[in-house]
């Protein structure tokens, strides 16, 4: 019993220490004057790394999810003769929930794990220590552009996801299953509220971008500088990011769309 309590206490303390370290990392990386000389170049490079490289998985997954959503929605709606409501069903599902959440989960798997592995390897090969000794703060040089890149890229990727998913839904619903194109688009336009649905979706994606990139960068810096340590850190990034995204999604949904 005492051992169990001890273990519980130790786990709690370790978790608290981890949160503390992650908070300090975020503070030290983001606080301070921007580096106008090198910052923009490093940011563009990281935007390319985390944003552009994630595009393929986002576009392919978005298209397929939109197609599946249209197929499932049609089979239910057609029973009630309401297949013309397919546009609003697909758009609300995507803009409010699936777009930001699935894009964030894919982002965590593609870009988050890559960021952790990259930073972990830099630590293992003493590149971070070398940077430190050259007189360059690795948190500013490595962490800061990556954090900003994730925060900027995630909402854009979520909107790309929504766009291609809607196109996938059009391909299946309109072109294949024969839903009237006019009613599909008109219903979508009528039901979607820019502030309520689109902006809230963007806010969610932004919040997920902060959390996923923060976890990924922190895990990289906090990784044990061994092959096993990097592998564990990469796994932790994907697991923690996914759980954090789902938990945050519930909280944000409750705040944004909660029952009055």
């Amino acid at each position, binding site marked *: 019993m005492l051992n169990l309590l001890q273990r519980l206490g130790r786990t709690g303390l370790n978790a608290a220490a981890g949160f503390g370290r992650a908070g300090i990392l975020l503070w030290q990386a983001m606080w301070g004057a921007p580096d106008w000389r*090198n910052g923009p170049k490093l940011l563009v490079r990281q935007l390319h790394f985390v944003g552009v490289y994630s595009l393929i998985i986002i576009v392919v997954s978005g298209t397929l999810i939109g197609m599946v959503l249209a197929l499932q929605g049609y089979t239910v709606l057609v029973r009630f003769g309401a297949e013309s409501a397919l546009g609003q069903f697909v758009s609300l599902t995507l803009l409010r929930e699936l777009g930001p959440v699935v894009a964030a989960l894919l982002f965590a798997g593609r870009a988050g794990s890559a960021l952790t592995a990259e930073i972990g390897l830099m630590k293992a*090969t*003493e*590149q971070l*220590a*070398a*940077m*430190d*000794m*050259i*007189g*360059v*703060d690795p948190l500013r040089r490595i962490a800061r552009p990556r954090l900003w890149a994730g925060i900027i890229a995630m909402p854009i990727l979520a909107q790309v996801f929504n766009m291609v998913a809607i196109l996938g839904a059009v391909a299946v619903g309109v072109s294949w299953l024969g839903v009237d194109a006019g009613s599909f688009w008109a219903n979508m336009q009528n039901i979607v509220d820019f502030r309520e649905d689109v902006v809230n979706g963007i806010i969610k994606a932004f919040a997920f971008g902060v959390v996923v990139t923060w976890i990924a960068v922190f895990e990289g810096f906090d990784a044990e500088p061994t092959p096993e340590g990097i592998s564990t850190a990469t796994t932790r990034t994907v697991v923690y990011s996914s759980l954090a995204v789902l938990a945050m999604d519930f909280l944000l949904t409750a705040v944004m769309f909660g029952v009055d």
Partner: protein
Amino acid sequence: MAVPSASIELNAADVIKQAMSENWIEIRNLTFRRGQRAILDTLDFDIPKGKITAILGPSGCGKTTLLRLIGSQLRPTAGSILIDGTDVAQLHRKELFKLREQMGMLFQSGALFTDLSVYENVAFPLRLHTSLPESMIRDLVLMKLHAVGLRGARDLMPAELSGGMARRAALARAIVLDPQLIMYDEPFVGQDPIFAGVLRDLIRRINQSMGCTCIIVSHDIAETLAISDYIYVLANGRIIGRGTPDAVKNSDDPWLRQFLQGLPDGPVPFHYPAPDYRQDLQMEER
């Protein structure tokens, strides 16, 4: 023309300070612990200015930790490290990065930035800490690469270099800002005799031509003794021997003799602490 008296006092103070500080680094009561384990235990020693000082010791005795403490990448549990009269542990982040511009470090793995070419690796500190025009940066980089024999390898990526070449490229990067202190972490590990000889000569030449203070941390006795001016031997977190290479070589201390002659057993036991061998094999029960 009259010289202002304040200026005279300042210059006199500088001269006195310079004359007094023959040691560039002064380490006092330095202790570093990881948990309950003391990695370094109340160390007291000095690193003389402009000389090559070696810190010898077996693997895992805290040599690299000591270098990290001098570079202030780690904070001491107790004691102080004075570099040119400044306690590095008391420096703020910004002051520390300023001080590190005067330091160069050759890491055990080379630690070249893998996404940059050899040329860009060497140019990296120049681009960050100076506002030199590109043509001057080019000249300086090529001069340093020429000094380590890699001018022709400027466009290669770190992955295309052999271990010895990577370490030489890293050395060019470490000296590109003409630092006052260069720290070498196990420079001879994993080097074939040719590259070890090349590195040894480079370290000596750099020390003589730049007049910088050098610290070599190593367990490679022959190479290190050949180029060092002064030696400290570290074991179990303490300094157990010190002196010139000849004095250390001729020491009667059993620990030093075991280390220098590479004897398998002695004050450092061959066996990791374990229960009685017969008991472990359960001989009595049989």
